[in-house]
């Protein structure tokens, strides 16, 4: 028993010494760190450096009780470097705290970067560093520069980055014209031979100078950011944009949206509006005589939400007519989107991947020229739309 006690004492002594001598090096107090909420990456071709902008929380402004002293809730600052890590290192000269990147909500990519220097090289650091997540949405700026975009404060959400993310999610849920693209999607598309990445674009409307100051929140005439098209890449470089309704094709084919809004002619001048939901699409890709054949089958249900003609919708033929018109409209939108991508010779829809999964041997033979093959592919779109609801009135507005 005595040796037991001696052993216990020595164990405690050793553990105590170990604790005292090695110290806890990973201990970081909250007032030593800066929480980075958003990152913007741009490229300056003249100097061949990356310019990284960080949007960091200004903590005293964000207290739950709102005891802020009137400053801005976030701080933006930028730094340069030949690699992103170097830029991060250089940023310590500017900002007094250690950055932590695990709370990044958004990554912005500057247009310069996308056009002049490809996307291939900026995402490695996101994958490799354990403190950074890869399920962060990415946006690209269009006709605007990163610093200005990140500076524009919004009145709904005090933190600009979060309002941007909210916009994208909102648009993708309700309208279907933009989708949320995350870093891992982009990486996957970059490394896959059968698909190319796409990123939603944003632009600024209004006076950018007032947008960056508190006046923006206070006045009614605001400067704000809006979503503007989807960028198309080829081998990592930006080659063009898909705008407006054609962007729906992207979302529908990739099965990312369930709801969308459709505008159909009901007579020469006026339109009806259909809310389409339960969208499901299935694509088949095949290679016949060195021409790619792409068949897309879309099924959807629709609700009439706005009727500006007074054709009697209680008649079955009228409904059928509207259904047909809706199908045609949707087909046209999808086809238009694919045509734009074909012109840009970039398979952003992932048809190559589908070919690879279904017809392995054909894929292996032709994967080198897939983008070319895609641009010359024959595309068939077939939409099957069923109108199931007409809203709270069973007859059209009588006028």
């Amino acid at each position, binding site marked *: 028993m005595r040796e037991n006690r001696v052993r216990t004492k020595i164990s405690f002594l050793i553990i105590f010494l170990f*604790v005292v001598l090695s110290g*806890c090096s*990973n*201990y*970081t*107090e*909250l*007032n030593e*760190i800066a*929480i980075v*909420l958003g990152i913007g990456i741009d490229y300056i071709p003249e100097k061949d450096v990356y310019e990284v902008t960080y949007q960091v*929380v200004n*903590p*005293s*402004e*964000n*207290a*739950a009780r709102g005891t802020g002293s009137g400053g801005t809730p976030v701080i933006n600052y930028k730094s340069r470097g030949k690699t992103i890590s170097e830029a991060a290192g250089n940023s310590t000269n500017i900002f007094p705290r250690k950055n*932590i990147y*695990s*709370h990044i*909500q958004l990554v912005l990519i500057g247009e310069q970067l996308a056009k002049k220097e490809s996307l291939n090289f900026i995402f490695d650091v996101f994958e490799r560093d354990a*403190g950074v997540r890869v399920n962060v949405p990415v946006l690209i700026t269009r006709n605007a520069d990163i610093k200005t975009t990140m500076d524009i404060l919004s009145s709904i959400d005090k933190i600009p980055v979060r309002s941007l993310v909210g916009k994208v999610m909102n648009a993708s849920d309700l309208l279907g014209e933009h989708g949320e693209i995350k870093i891992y999607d982009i990486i996957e598309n970059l490394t896959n031979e059968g698909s190319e990445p796409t990123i939603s674009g944003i632009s600024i409307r209004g006076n950018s100078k007032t947008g960056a100051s508190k006046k923006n929140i206070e006045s009614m005439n605001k400067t704000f950011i809006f979503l503007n098209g989807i960028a198309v890449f080829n081998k990592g470089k930006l080659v063009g944009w898909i705008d407006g309704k054609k962007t729906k094709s992207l979302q529908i084919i990739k099965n990312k949206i369930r709801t969308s809004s459709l505008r159909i002619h009901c007579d020469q001048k006026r339109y009806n509006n259909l809310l389409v939901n339960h969208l499901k699409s299935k694509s088949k890709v095949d290679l016949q005589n060195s021409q790619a054949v792409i068949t897309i089958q879309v099924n959807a249900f629709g609700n009439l939400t706005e009727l500006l003609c007074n054709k009697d919708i209680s008649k079955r033929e009228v409904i059928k007519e509207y259904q047909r018109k809706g199908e045609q409209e949707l087909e046209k939108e999808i086809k238009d989107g694919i045509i734009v991508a074909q012109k840009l010779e970039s398979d952003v829809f992932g048809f190559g991947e589908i070919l690879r999964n279904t017809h392995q041997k054909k894929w292996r033979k032709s994967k080198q020229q897939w983008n070319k093959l895609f641009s010359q592919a024959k595309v068939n779109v077939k939409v099957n739309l069923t109108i199931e609801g007409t809203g709270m009135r069973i007859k059209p507005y009588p006028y």
Partner: protein
Amino acid sequence: MWKKVSLKQHKSSGNTSSSDDLLTKNLIENVGQIKEDLGDCSDLNVRMIKHKENPFAFAVIHIDGISNTPKIDEHVIEPLLTNKFDPASRTIKDELQQVIAVTNIKEKNTFKDILSAIVSGGTVILIDNDPSALILSTREIESRSIVEPTTQTVIRGPKDSFTENLRTNTSLVRSRIQSPNLRLDSMIIGEVTQTQVEIMYIKDIADESIVKEVKNRLQKIKIDGIIESAYIEGFIQDEMQTPFPTVQNTERPDAVVGNLLEGRVAIFMTGTPYVLIVPVTFTQLFQSPEDYYQNQYIGSVLRILRLGAFFLALYAPAVYVAMITHHQALVPTVLLVSIAAQREAIPFPAIVEAFIMEITFEVLREAGIRMPRAVGSALSIVGALILGQAAVDAGFVSAAMVIIVSVTAIASFALPNYNLGIAARSLRFLLLIVASYAGLYGVLAASLIIGMHMCSLRSFGVPYLSPIAPFKLKEQKDVLFRFALPNLINRPTPANKKNRVRIGNRNEGE
């Protein structure tokens, strides 16, 4: 299988008289010896009876206060005074036995026995020319009436609790278990205090080896005196170096009854209303008798809640400190921003702040126990609300830390077993230090070590963590969830292996 507890042999405090001396035949000498041995205390009553018509002289000796004086006067002294005894009778003691109306009469002839009888409230009748004496048990002490329990209260259930009188306590249990198998074994512990300790168990339900081991350990105790059952607890524990209680205590008779029916042994003691119950397992410490008085769903929910409270009391400060100092990535962004804002102006590092708050709260709690009732309410308001609020406003501590510490403290009181709450509070500090050092990894390592320590504990041979580890499927019905009463058919581990099925609970013809 039992861990041998080697107790130091204490030297018993000296006895005054030569203990094994026999009485002499001379009455006056005997009486004088007794008075000398007892130091002629002011509460010692000696009544010499010399009957005119009788040649016999008697002396009736008892100590006032611990013996039933009116009864002695009526049933002992009066018959001695009024009865005529045959002077030539040889069997005067037998005649006395027929006259004296007392239940328990014994015959002894050593000073030791007589003295110990007197100091425990008995009456001694010394007879002239007779070297042995009669000892009557006439013990009666003033004790508290049966009131509501002070520490282990329930909403629905019996509201009587034990008192300091041993016989009252055992009677409260006896009246609830009216079975001839209920056994009560008595022993005396404590050299000076000579306290009476009794063991109660149900014969065929309790495991024989456990009963034997309990008696064994109790008999090994050599100490001056035991004041509270905690002293016994300290001696009979399997393992001394543990914060976890391996002996349970209760002041409720219904808890004792429930435990006896599950095969456990209860230890009663004069002088304290707290009755010990052995053996105990960890899961049992979360059970309160109330679980069985409400329906099964409420009982299960409450039990899970208590388990949650235990883990909260143990882990909350440690996990909080670990998350905001090592693992900032785990905290949701909005929360992190808010906490960061609060902590901007705090001068202390998180760990120091946690310690300050914890220690302050412990001091407040101690003060609250000893505070006289008049001042008590002022303290609770001042301490809890205003002090905490003022500290936050002054910028000493952050509001989040105050919340965590108060939640922890309240959670540690939600446990039905007070000792377990104390154990949780002590271990909490250890985990806090480890958390600040190595984050959640350190907390996990420390929890593993605590877990291994608990796994190695035994309470009278029963593994502390059964029925979870070793896992016994049949006993799971009463651990986390409380199944409906008709379904609790098996008795848990401490019960006799042959008697595992509760008799009355089997459904006939189902």
